[in-house]
């Protein structure tokens, strides 16, 4: 447990080492990257084994950082953090495996990749709002270069749009936090201290601060109508970056909402709760509908991410422990499943066929050309639809049941989103892999045989599929961490059913 902060340092060291190794050869950089990712995975899994949920928030490091401003370098973890740390480590490992074929500027790619990962680990471990913000911003800039340099379709536009949305969001967060800090007397950025100070704020202040901080984080979580960066960014990004973006970076936003905005400004939350709930529901249905008519395979996955993140926000807006625990579980589940979808679409299919247009793909007998990819995608699709046996099922079910207690109407409309998810996923599976059931039409077969699926890809896919099935069969593994954390005193003000 106490080794968890090392995930941050290992990632940043790995970034530097990969940069140096990249000047020697691409292969060295890859192995450095894999070792770094596996080290973080080992650290988080070891912490997971020894984790005692009942202890609540456990401080790992707490030293003064900037004494004159009352900033402390305070890292702590509870069940929610640990869930997301494990997710980050798994996604990072899979991402390295799926970018094994990057030949150009490999060292720099992995350096930026691990700078991003290090920032993400830092956010999930921060117990001081300033520290959280610093790591949050560290995670923003590498995304630009990853997408603009190694991306595909319309990459410079997608990269700039994504980074400006993220940065504008973080500006809102900074404004809100500084406002709270100043109104609280400018003593401390510790979450506990800020929450204690916030009790004395006027209602107007709470409403304003909550709006700024929540909106800032929700932009990154892909909340409708501020989600438009997500599909274009995902589509433009290289495979590993899409996996990280959908898998963990969008979780940063949701985590910020849950960890910072809601407990700090409970009065503001109560006021804005209906708005957030409706926006989440609209996002689920709207993005699902848009995904249904996409011609580009990757856009289907991009919009499905927005739709699934809508469930996370809905779970938060429902404001009871059950829905919120489902939201955290959904963060984990979507992180794994979205990674898998983007891996199949971006790496396995696009880099072999060089097209993502469903209209082109349906002419290829892909299920015969790439059977492994077909099986993986069907599994990922089932998980994405929320089929029992995969992690999406317990997550979405918990959210819907929890939401029903708050607002049956929200739950009913959101359930429509589950149907839409089934529709657009089945459509994508059908058109992409099983479009051509006839023997290949002359001219439709690719001129060259497609390269076989590599060992690294198989390993990455197995890691992700295994995780989603494991959690699907035994969601209590994570729920036993998450629920005690949500029953802590900090959340009792805002979440119903908080008393253990």
């Amino acid at each position: 447990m106490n080794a968890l902060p090392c995930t941050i340092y290992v990632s940043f060291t790995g970034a530097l080492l990969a940069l140096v190794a990249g000047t020697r050869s691409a292969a060295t950089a890859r192995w450095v990257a894999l070792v770094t990712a596996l080290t973080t995975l080992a650290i988080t899994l070891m912490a997971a084994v020894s984790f005692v949920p009942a202890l609540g928030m456990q401080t790992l490091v707490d030293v003064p950082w900037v004494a004159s401003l009352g900033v402390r370098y305070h890292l702590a973890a509870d069940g929610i953090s640990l869930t997301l740390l494990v997710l980050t480590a798994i996604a990072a490992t899979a991402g390295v495996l799926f970018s094994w074929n990057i030949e150009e500027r490999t060292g720099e790619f992995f350096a930026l990749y691990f700078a991003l990962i290090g920032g993400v680990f830092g956010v999930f471990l921060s117990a001081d709002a300033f520290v959280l913000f610093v790591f949050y911003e560290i995670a923003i800039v590498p995304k630009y270069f990853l997408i603009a340099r190694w991306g595909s379709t319309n990459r410079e536009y997608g990269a700039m749009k994504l980074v400006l949305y993220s940065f504008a969001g973080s500006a809102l967060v900074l404004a809100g936090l500084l406002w709270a800090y100043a109104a609280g007397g400018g003593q401390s950025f510790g979450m506990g201290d800020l929450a204690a100070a916030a009790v004395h704020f006027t209602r107007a202040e709470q409403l304003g601060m909550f709006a700024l901080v929540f909106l800032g984080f929700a932009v990154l979580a892909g909340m409708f109508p501020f989600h438009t960066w997500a599909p274009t960014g995902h589509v433009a990004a290289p495979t590993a970056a899409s996996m990280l973006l959908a898998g963990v970076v969008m979780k940063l936003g949701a985590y910020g909402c849950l960890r910072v905005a809601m407990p700090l400004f409970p009065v503001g939350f109560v006021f804005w709760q209906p708005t957030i709930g409706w926006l989440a529901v609209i996002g689920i249905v709207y993005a699902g509908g848009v995904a249904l008519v996409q011609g580009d395979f990757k856009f289907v996955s991009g919009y499905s991410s927005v739709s699934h993140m809508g469930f996370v926000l809905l779970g938060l807006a429902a404001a009871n422990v059950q829905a919120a625990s489902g939201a955290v579980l959904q963060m984990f589940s979507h992180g794994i499943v979205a990674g898998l979808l983007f891996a199949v679409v971006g790496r396995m299919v696009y880099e072999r066929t060089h097209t993502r247009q469903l209209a082109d793909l349906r002419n290829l007998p892909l299920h015969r050309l790439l059977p492994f990819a077909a099986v993986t995608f069907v599994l990922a699709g089932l998980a994405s639809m929320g089929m029992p046996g995969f992690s999406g099922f317990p997550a979405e079910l918990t959210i819907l049941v929890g939401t029903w207690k708050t607002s049956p109407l929200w739950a009913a409309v959101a359930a429509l989103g589950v149907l839409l998810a089934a529709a657009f996923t089945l459509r994508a599976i059908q058109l992409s892999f099983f479009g051509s059931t006839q023997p290949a039409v002359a001219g439709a077969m690719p001129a060259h045989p497609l390269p076989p699926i590599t060992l690294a890809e198989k390993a990455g896919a197995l890691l992700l599929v295994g995780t989603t099935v494991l959690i699907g069969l035994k969601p209590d593994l994570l729920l036993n961490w998450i629920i005690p954390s949500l029953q802590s005193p900090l959340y009792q003000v805002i979440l119903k059913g908080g008393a253990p």
Partner: protein
Amino acid sequence: MTTNYPELFCAFAGEASLVLGMLVVLGYDLTVGRKRSPTERWQASCILGGAALFSALVVGLRVGVVGPVLGGEFMLDALGVGTRAAVLVLAGLTLMLTAGTARLRNPAEFVAIVLLAATGFSLMAVAQQLLVAFLALELASLSLYVLAGFDKTRPESAEAALKYFLFGGMSAAFLLFGFSLLYGLTGSIDTSAIAAALAAQGSSPLLSVALVMVLVAFGFKAAAAPFHLWAPDVYQGAPATSAALIASASKLAGLTFFVRLLWPGLGYATGDVALRHFSPGWLAVVALLSAASLLVGNFGALAQSNLRRLLAYSAIAHAGALLLGVMAAGTAGPAPLYFYAATYGLATVGAFGVVAVLEAAGVGPQIADLAGLYRRSPLLAGCLFIFILSLAGIPPLAGFFGKFAVFAAALNFGGLASVTGWLAFAAIFLSAVALYYYLRVLKQALVAPPAPGADGRIAVPGAAALALLLAALLLVVLGVFPSLLLQIFS
């Protein structure tokens, strides 16, 4: 008042060593250097000049914080000592960058004038009395006019010098007029005496006139809108390292000078910018300058295609945030302002240093010319990455912390019930705009492939490489451990 010469010498041994160093540089070049090659003359001058700056730095730090000197004419407080040290470091970096990149004639004169300018900055940092302060300011300004026009082979350099001189001369006239009005009103040129006299006699229309005159000069020195018009042309035309000095050390010394004058000296005429009980005073005027600079700088920079002009507009935008720090210094003290200005200076010297190296290699000055820099010189690309991101305020670089401290101080100053709070919000949101133009530069340098025919390696001279690495390292270290610099104020 009796003059205590030993005390005076002790406090100003650093400035003395700068002047001495200047004489040595000139003397060496006149006697031994004449027979040497231009490269050797550059190296010798820069080494001697660097030694003078270094000894001034060491001596200045050894003197340390001693409080008022010479009956309060000078103030060696934390701000003064910190500013002195920072301007010397910035001038030293400038010299190192010049050593490898300048294609100018008259090396000894260039170095000597840099030393003179450093003397001026150093005195500005500690001067408390209007006349001494004005002399220090003029010493620095006149040196900078010469430095701006030092490249006699390019007409742009002469244009820059002329523009800078005309604007600067005008603003100096305003400042002197303002000072003379203050003297007429209060009968003193000593800041504390002025403060006491103003408090006793109350406000008068003449005081407002004097304030406006002083603030015009301040706006010019800080490159704040609407007194910014000189900045893009000067930054574009002057030799790159002169521009670096103008943008960094000169700005820091000027801010220190004015924050001393405004808060303790003209504290009576501060006024209030709180929304409920607004009252006129210099605070309101500075708030206007700040708002105008933030808008003009950030939106002006969006349209730039020349890297130097982009840096100039970014400087104007930063001036807006720095003025916020000047206002907030009333409650938070000068620490945030100083941290911001010093680290901004480091990043700017670094960015202009990269420009200087590139121009010496025949690359530039358009942003598009940076294409493929990551392959042509990984060192320059990496350093530029750090400098630009520090200017953009991305953690963990020092620029982020400077911004953060200033905005926090500005919000603490009066919360959202005061104009400073709203300006801080505006500055935070405009930083998202700023990221766009900063990323445009980095996109060319780090993402775009080299243009055909322009993909040769760029050689970076040793001294310049060292200076760039030093500046980058300082930005990282001060960003991760800001207390290193902030603790001198506590």
